[in-house]
């Protein structure tokens, strides 16, 4: 018995410790590898990921009109901005912005603003696509859920949202149509 006790007390660097640790490490790696497919199956599947693009005809959009199109299940706001709206967006000092970006960085041509219409706070669709809706204090968009105000460049100005409305990847196919995605 006393020999046994001594063996148990003398733990430092024994073969048994090594076996315990390496077996435990292999077990943990194995468990992680076994869990991976389950977790991964919850991520977007191939059909969801399949690249979707949306082509939009802009010829019917009038000056000052905003339209909503759907891209990857998300609303995209397209705004044919009036000269006043462009002027307001361009003259805003960067120091006033929570997420500083110039208007030039957010458009391909000043006339057309294309943003993803999802509030960067908690994902509501902001109001302001129709002239009759509340467009907030800066004439852009207003999120009714928690009161975020966006300006005519889709930049966050007031409220809990941390970021500007994001710009989707898009390109002009010709003067009157764009391809999103």
């Amino acid at each position, binding site marked *: 018995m006393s020999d046994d006790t001594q063996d148990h007390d003398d733990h430092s660097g024994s073969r048994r410790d090594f076996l315990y640790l390496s077996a435990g490490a292999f077990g943990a790696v194995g468990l992680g590898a076994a869990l991976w497919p389950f977790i991964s199956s919850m991520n977007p599947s191939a059909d969801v990921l399949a690249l979707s693009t949306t082509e939009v005809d802009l010829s019917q959009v009038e000056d000052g009109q905003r339209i909503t199109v759907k891209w990857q299940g998300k609303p995209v706001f397209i705004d044919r901005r009036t000269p006043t709206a462009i002027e307001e967006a361009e003259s805003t000092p960067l120091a006033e912005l929570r997420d500083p970006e110039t208007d030039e960085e957010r458009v391909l041509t000043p006339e057309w603003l294309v943003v993803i219409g999802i509030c960067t706070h908690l994902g509501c669709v902001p109001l302001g696509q129709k002239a009759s809706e509340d467009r907030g204090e800066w004439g852009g968009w207003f999120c*009714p859920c928690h009161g975020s105000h966006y300006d005519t460049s889709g930049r966050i100005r007031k409220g809990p949202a941390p970021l500007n409305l994001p710009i989707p990847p898009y390109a002009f196919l010709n003067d009157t149509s764009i391809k999103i995605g």
Partner: protein
Amino acid sequence: MSAGTNQTGGTNSGLVKWIDSRLPVFSYLQKEYAEYQSPRNFNWFWNFGAILTFLLVMMIMSGIFLAMQYQPNTALAFDSVERIMRDVNFGWLLRYLHQNGATFFFIAIYIHMFRGMYYGSYKAPRELLWMLGVVILLLAMATAFMGYVLPWGQMSFWGATVITNLFSAVPLVGDSIVTLLWGGFSIDNPTLNRFFALHYLFPFLIFGVVVLHVIALHVSGSNNPLGVDPKGPQDTVSFHPYYTMKDSVGLAVFVTIMAAFVFFAPDFFGEPENYLEAAPLNTPAHIVPEWYFLPFFAILRSVDFDILFIEAKLGGVIAMFGAIFVLFVLPWLDKSPVRSAKFRPVYKWFFWIFLIDCVLLGYVGGKPTDAPVFGGVESFQIIHLGYITTFWYFAHFLIVLPLLGIFERPKPVPKSISEAVLGGGSSGAAATAKPMEKA
């Protein structure tokens, strides 16, 4: 009921004895639910454990039968719920029981928790019992949230959008987590599918934690309105028939009230907006969660300012989850050695202030942030009341309770339950009484 003579619940059936000697279910039930000794002075607030057990079984039953008719697909879900309401035999009853059952489950769980707070039921040796209860609360909230998405109405969709987007506030990996939850780039069919699967699973997890909750309860025994431990048989009665009867009466009253809503006002707690099918491009003007989430929703919205390097969005999420996690450490924040508020003259007042604070938070959560409070002056808006009530929620736990433990002078605590409720010491029983512990 004389205990001990018959281990198998009063039956002499040979079959029962044969089974019990191989699988002791009958003697277990006899020991834990019949002879089990409970303090003799329970009041009606001790009914809610039994009521919650009943409701959990009712929710699982009605849910299983609803699942036989429901279609977890964005194209079919809304219509399948309407089909349940109109065409399925007693479908309206199954659905209204399930819908109102969720509401009454939270009514019961909140009363059960405030009972625990008033009578100090979370204090040693019942800390783990309380913490398991908070786990049940969290699981119930997750279950209710996912269940609310299934009818695929406007509030289903936009409530789910707002709540899942909370996770995008997590630094670095937030957006990946949200994509993982959605299985796509917005709330869509994959999301509805997995929410249905998890909504079916979670009640059984709750059931498992309830079993642990009851095991932990039966180790330490129930607390009681005096907060004094039973000192011997003179302080207790057997669970059956005394508390099986009392629980049955309380349950009957509770179920009658619930039935009144199920049959006469089934949509009283609901949102009319959820009878419109989900429209991903059209956010309702005012998104509100179900009433039982309103206090936590109010706390989320009230942090609309940056705290040091923490952005408002993340701050709100931390505050909301913190409001639940602070409950886990409640047993260590309340340092007072006296359990029951009956003998804590100052805590008693702070308890009621805290209860009012929670009700006000619920009111705040249900109104637009810029509305005037109670329709009063324009300058005192809902958001301002939200700041005050959110601050008080945390101050109660983090400032008031620790300080009361130091400065409050409790009233003298009775020596025993029987002395307090029977008025005078029962000398005969004193011989069997355990030594009194310091209170």
